[in-house]
């Protein structure tokens, strides 16, 4: 493990290093068949196109306030979710559109929520940062960094008490690993051996600040050592590696062997939030990571192995573009919520 050196100017930041391959625990995870590998590609493309449409809708004035997009990190959302089962609990952060889509969130209700409409996933009460779909096990997101981790631990305790082999998977960023809620959650999950999978998307930036200014190392598996928790580091831009790591962690959790910390090395293509042009990043770093975009990487692998043609890949992309456009158009035509509705009923059961 290399410790990051504290640098004073953005120009002095260390150059990006390719993420190492997964160091799994040799649990037998069945190889993915062709259909699933293609599905991973399709899901990543759908997430990418969903987010691109959010950006366009924002510029059209349809999305309000702020949004936190996940282009570049689709490999984590798609890969990890493929390893989860119905009945598992999933939680995430304000950068959570991808996780919810991978779990089956309907695009139209998602756009309607982003557009603040009555037909939105949360009736327009939550917005971009709070997609919640309890029927799909999407238990929600905290808009406050690290704030959702304790609830994920609670869902893990729920899963343990149920005794049905469920797991609680929680996605969060590198910015979360320095706040108390993260540490308390890791500790409780480990001492109670809860079936929780901590999936850290290390995109190197906590909001606008590079990790070397905030954290004593860039390899966040270091954090897990303090809790004696099994930790795995994977290339988050390798969707199949993320799948394997998560599947192994899920197997451990379902077997009663406790939590796992998975660090996914990844990068967000855009800024922290909609108003952030991310000018603080070293262009060489951005360029290097753009070259490691998880979608073309997976597509190239599938093409090389003869599982996908370029033409089919283009068709999948075109279909996703059409899907998001149609969903956003329908959502934009939806009615606004009624300010006279009974909000107490939304607040209290």
């Amino acid at each position, binding site marked *: 493990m290399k410790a990051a050196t504290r640098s004073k100017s953005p120009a002095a930041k260390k150059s990006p290093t390719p993420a190492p391959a997964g160091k799994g625990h040799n649990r037998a995870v069945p190889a993915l068949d062709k259909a699933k590998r293609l599905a991973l590609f399709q899901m990543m493309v759908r997430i990418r196109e969903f987010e691109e449409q959010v950006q366009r809708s924002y510029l059209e004035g349809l999305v309000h306030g702020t949004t936190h997009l996940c282009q570049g990190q689709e490999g984590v959302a798609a890969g990890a979710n493929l390893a989860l089962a119905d009945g598992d609990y999933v939680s995430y952060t304000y950068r959570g559109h991808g996780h919810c889509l991978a779990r089956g969130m309907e695009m139209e209700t998602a756009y309607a929520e982003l557009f603040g409409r009555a037909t939105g996933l*949360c009736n327009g009460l939550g917005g971009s940062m709070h997609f919640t779909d*309890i029927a799909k096990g999407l*238990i929600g997101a905290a808009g406050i960094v690290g704030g959702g981790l*304790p609830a994920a631990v*609670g869902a893990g305790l*729920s899963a343990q008490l149920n005794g049905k082999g469920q797991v609680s998977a929680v996605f969060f960023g590198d910015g979360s690993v320095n706040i108390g*809620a993260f540490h*308390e959650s890791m500790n409780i999950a480990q*001492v*109670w051996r809860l079936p929780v999978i901590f999936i850290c998307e290390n995109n190197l930036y906590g909001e606008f600040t590079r990790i070397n200014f905030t954290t004593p190392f860039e390899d966040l598996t270091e954090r897990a050592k303090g809790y004696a928790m099994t930790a795995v580091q994977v290339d988050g831009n390798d969707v199949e590696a993320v799948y394997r790591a998560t599947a192994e962690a899920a197997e451990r959790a379902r077997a009663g062997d406790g939590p796992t910390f998975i660090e996914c090395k990844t990068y967000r293509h855009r800024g922290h939030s909609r108003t952030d042009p991310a000018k603080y990043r070293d262009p060489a770093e951005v360029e290097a990571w753009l070259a490691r975009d998880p979608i073309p990487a997976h597509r190239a692998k599938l093409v090389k192995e003869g599982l996908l043609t370029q033409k089919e890949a283009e068709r999948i992309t075109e279909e996703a573009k059409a899907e998001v456009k149609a969903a956003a158009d329908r959502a934009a035509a939806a009615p606004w919520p009624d300010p006279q509705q009974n909000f107490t009923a939304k607040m209290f059961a």
Partner: protein
Amino acid sequence: MQTQEITYREAIAAALQEEMRRDPKTLIMGEDIGPSGGPFKTCQGLYEEFGHARVRDTPIAETGFVGAALGLAITGYRPIVEIMFADFLGVCFDQIVNGIAKHRFMSGGQFAVPVTIRAIGGAGLRFGPQHSTTAESWFMSVPGLKIVCPSTPAEAYGMLKSAIRDDDPVLVLEHKALLSSKGHVPVGSEATQPLTGPRVLRPGRDATVVASLAMVPRALAAGEKLASEGIEAEIIDIRALRPMDLTPVFESVRRTNNLVTVEEQAKLGGWGAEVAAQVTSEAFDHLDSPPLRVGLPEYPVPYSPPLEDSVLPSPDAIAAAVKSLL
């Protein structure tokens, strides 16, 4: 109804035990609540009966275990958490105000959030500035929470049972100076207490005195004292701080024409200000004097016994406040 004379502390333990027997989805988490029965013995006997799965000693990590209660609640459980000293609610403030209080609303009302947060607060036991708050007003401006403050063993028992059965987050503020107080409690019954509404404890015609927690017995003592001087104060226990239904207080002030509030916290931002404001709006024409608030000074509760005693409103001070209006 069959009742037993037990302490406030025993009433809490009885309510927890009965509700945990009643609903297998209930569980309690907190610091030192397992085999040791809780620092204030409010969880006595629970670990022996329900075991580690449902009576969980937690790490000293309020953010972690209070936040975990949210995750449990939205996935089918009915968690109870104990905050050893109400002062420690500050440690998990985010989980309560941004998580537990808002999660149902943010989801568009997709699920219930049946979390009960018990916090043992209050002064009078020489615990000093960081272990003596009642925390009554800390959460009063947070929609999404219900807040109750039982002042007797019967209220502690009945309101805690109601809080646990309630499908919404309820913050139960208990008081450590009341733990050994005794009262008649319908142990083992289905008699719960409502989570809203003040209660008139002593009728009177000359002034309305509204108090909470350990100020309630002091207000009652002041009422006795005043009665010996021919002044009849109506003593009301506010019982619930959120939602705040003051109908009985309005009704009382319309008869007595005078209002005094007594709270064990600084007056600025206290619930007494809210009561005074609402009474002024609802019964302005009935007031013969400006509402008077009695509370603590604008500094933390001090440790030294004579100092702590001096900041807590005494029955004499409450009686004097009432007399100053008449």
